């Protein structure tokens, strides 16, 4: 038999002025199961709470209803009071008779009547409340950062700074990512390598950071605080522990005709290679697609010249498994492929390059040692045309619907650097809009126009035609002058849209995190939780969440680290007990609930049931992980059999409220 206590608050005159609180207490006192019904000036005050606590003890209450302000205000207060008096905190219900009654109504009679109905609904609900205990799950004090670009490095450094172990998994032979390929950074024009490489070194030397380069995540199991991750360490045919990075093998390797991906294929490297001088780890890697020893068994030069015997042609992929409490995704971006843009002649003409290729062409460590020369004939270009929004803001199948965000600024940077270094060069920039929101960004762009006299022309390039004399005809529109232009250019630079790295989509599936249609990871809340994914324990860092420049990436990386540290600091996580649960006897195993769960909290198990005739039957049934479930209830409606229900807001509780209101 339920013994329910009702406590009606006056809230000074806030409630009592329009609601006859005594009448409410009196009326609710007659509800079934109610053994005590009282009113008091301020229920939330210490004496008010004591009143509740004493009543719980004195009347051995099995549930309480507080008729007061919004539960958003004081639900926790009364739950704590109940717990202090030995009553399960989830046996407390609040009837909101202030915000949703006394404050909006003027007539005392009708307001009182409504307050009674709201109280009655709460009593009806509390009859069906079950005591709930918040579960706890332990937190493994180690973080995983997927991606070793500037985002991943910054996140790892910050987490390590807080004293937690952190692993970086990078699919390339070195960390550094896109920033390592960039020449200068806007808007300050400092050299990217000068600010990035010290961070890479710091990461490699930090005792808390382990770098798994040339590695990939292949499997993720578990949930917040306790992920189990399988990492594939791809065979690089060089023993990382022995290699000193002296580079002798790369010099002696006879196979020197391998397109150098670090320089965007603009020059060649050897089959055994170190991507760039400041690579971390500075360890050679053998490319099995080109190494003659691995392909045909004939060569072995590198093995002979290596003084420490690090070359190991028999090396296999290795798998390691590790537990993590938190995972930070920092998979970054790539420029899109421009194969489909015939109008820009990217595939036909070597002097039509992407902006990232231009970065390499201008970089002191690039293919031309920092002198800007045309890839085709190594001549100095005199007229350069930049085309913005190539593949960005496109609704067609070739491009991306979003703004890639960074192109306006890096194009201004390129234009400015070229005009600075080669004042005899005419530089044209064709733009649809120039977007420069950011500190010192617009000033930077204006400097390109006003100080460096870069010709910014509003309009798009429609056709790029390589000519027989080696020049390039650029046909474009000048929308402000309302005319079509032809520019006789030496080079064309395309600001290709950026897209999330191709590895992100399979990774999202492994992590059960959400992605948008463009394959950017979706944040838990676009405004208030921008660095968390909707899946607890998974955080987002850098351009994997959306196009970002370096300062934004670093800011987000540190924010993601702070969130991860917040999680790792805890010894265990308290779970919200108002989570879904499935009645195995009724579950059909149809997977509807799993499909609507935004958190991947539902898995299926084969469960053995004992049948009335003593046989057993194995059936697939849903199982909710209470540590992952956030309690939205989407699954409860998707479930046709009604097997799925939500603690604290069960079908029967809500229907009891409906019934009480409609009585």
């Amino acid at each position, binding site marked *: 038999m339920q013994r329910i206590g009702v406590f009606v608050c006056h809230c000074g005159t806030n409630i009592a002025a329009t609601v006859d609180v005594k009448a409410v207490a009196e009326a609710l006192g007659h509800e079934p199961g109610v053994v005590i019904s009282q009113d008091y000036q301020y229920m939330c005050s210490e004496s008010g709470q004591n009143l509740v606590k004493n009543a719980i003890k004195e009347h051995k209450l099995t549930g309480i209803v507080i008729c007061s302000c919004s539960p958003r205000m004081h639900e926790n207060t009364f739950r704590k009071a109940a717990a202090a008096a030995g009553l399960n905190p989830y046996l407390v219900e609040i009837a909101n008779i202030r915000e949703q009654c006394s404050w909006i109504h003027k007539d005392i009679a009708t307001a009182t009547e409504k307050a009674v109905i709201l109280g009655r609904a709460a009593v009806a609900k509390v009859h069906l409340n079950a005591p709930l205990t918040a579960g706890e799950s332990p937190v493994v004090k180690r973080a995983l950062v997927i991606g070793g670009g500037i985002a991943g490095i910054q996140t790892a450094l910050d987490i390590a700074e807080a004293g937690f172990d952190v692993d970086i998994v990078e699919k390339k032979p070195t960390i550094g990512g896109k920033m390592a390929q960039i020449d200068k950074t806007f808007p300050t024009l400092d050299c990217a390598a000068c600010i990035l490489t010290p961070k890479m070194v710091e990461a490699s030397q930090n005792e808390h950071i382990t770098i798994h380069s040339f590695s990939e995540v292949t499997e993720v199991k578990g949930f917040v605080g306790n992920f189990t991750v399988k990492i594939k360490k791809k065979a690089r045919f060089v023993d990382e522990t022995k290699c000193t990075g002296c580079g002798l093998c790369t010099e002696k390797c006879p196979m020197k005709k391998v397109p150098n991906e670090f320089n965007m294929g603009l020059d060649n490297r050897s089959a055994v290679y170190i991507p760039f001088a400041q690579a971390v780890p500075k360890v050679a890697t053998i490319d099995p697609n080109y190494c003659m020893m691995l392909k045909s068994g004939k060569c072995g030069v590198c093995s002979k010249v290596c003084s420490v015997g690090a070359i190991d042609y028999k090396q296999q992929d290795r798998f390691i498994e590790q537990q993590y409490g938190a995972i930070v995704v920092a998979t970054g971006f790539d420029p899109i492929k421009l194969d489909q843009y015939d109008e820009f002649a990217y595939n036909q003409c070597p002097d039509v390059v992407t902006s990232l290729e231009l970065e390499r062409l201008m970089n002191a460590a690039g293919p031309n040692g920092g002198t800007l020369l045309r890839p085709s004939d190594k001549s100095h270009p005199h007229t350069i045309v930049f085309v913005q929004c190539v593949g960005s803001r496109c609704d067609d199948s070739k491009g991306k619907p979003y703004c890639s965000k960074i192109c306006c600024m890096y194009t201004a940077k390129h234009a400015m650097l070229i005009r600075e270094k080669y004042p005899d060069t005419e530089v044209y920039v064709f733009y649809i809009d120039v977007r420069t929101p950011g500190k010192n960004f617009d000033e930077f762009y*204006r400097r390109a*126009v*006003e100080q460096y*006299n870069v010709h910014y022309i*509003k309009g798009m390039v429609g056709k790029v035609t390589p000519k027989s004399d080696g020049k390039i005809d650029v046909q474009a529109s000048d929308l*402000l*002058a309302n005319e079509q232009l032809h520019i006789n250019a030496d080079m064309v630079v395309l600001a290709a849209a950026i897209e999330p790295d191709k590895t992100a989509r399979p990774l999202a599936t492994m992590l059960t995190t959400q992605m948008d249609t463009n394959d950017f990871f979706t944040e838990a809340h676009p405004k208030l939780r921008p660095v968390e994914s909707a899946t607890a324990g998974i955080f987002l860092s850098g351009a994997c969440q959306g196009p970002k420049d370096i300062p934004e990436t670093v800011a987000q990386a540190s924010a993601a680290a702070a969130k991860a540290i917040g999680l790792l600091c805890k010894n265990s996580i308290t779970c919200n007990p108002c989570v879904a649960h499935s009645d195995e006897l009724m579950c059909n195993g149809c997977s509807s609930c799993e499909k609507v769960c935004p958190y991947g909290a539902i898995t299926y198990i084969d469960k053995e049931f004992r049948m009335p005739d003593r046989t057993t039957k194995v059936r697939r049934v849903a199982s909710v992980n209470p540590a992952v479930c956030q309690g939205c209830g989407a699954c409860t409606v998707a479930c046709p059999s009604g097997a799925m229900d939500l603690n604290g807001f069960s079908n029967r509780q809500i229907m009891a409220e409906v019934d009480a209101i409609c009585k």
Partner: protein
Amino acid sequence: MNKNIKEQVLRSSGVNVLKCMRCGKCSATCPSYDEMEYHPHQFVYMVEKGDIEKLMKSESLYKCLTCFACVDRCPRNVEPAKVVEAVRLAAVRQQGGNRLTPDMIPDMLDDDLPQQAIVTALRKYAK
């Protein structure tokens, strides 16, 4: 030739046309807009491109009231009216003659025209 005129216009106006960010506020604020073939923002842009001859031939030069609304409201202090003025000056100088002579005045008079405008017009359109 073109380059010389451009330099002359830039020097005599004292305007840095590169400062223009093409917002169009000058034209948006111009009371003579409907009368003009080339509008204030086009003056700035065409001067930047060195495309000045078209401007010099255009009636637009004489539609500018020199009210300076564009100068006042330009968010980047480009001062388009000064550009118009400078192009006009270039045109007047090149033609070697006067746009306006005193004997043309009586036909143009009407009761609402302030005396000062006539004097100004003579100053502006004659050597």
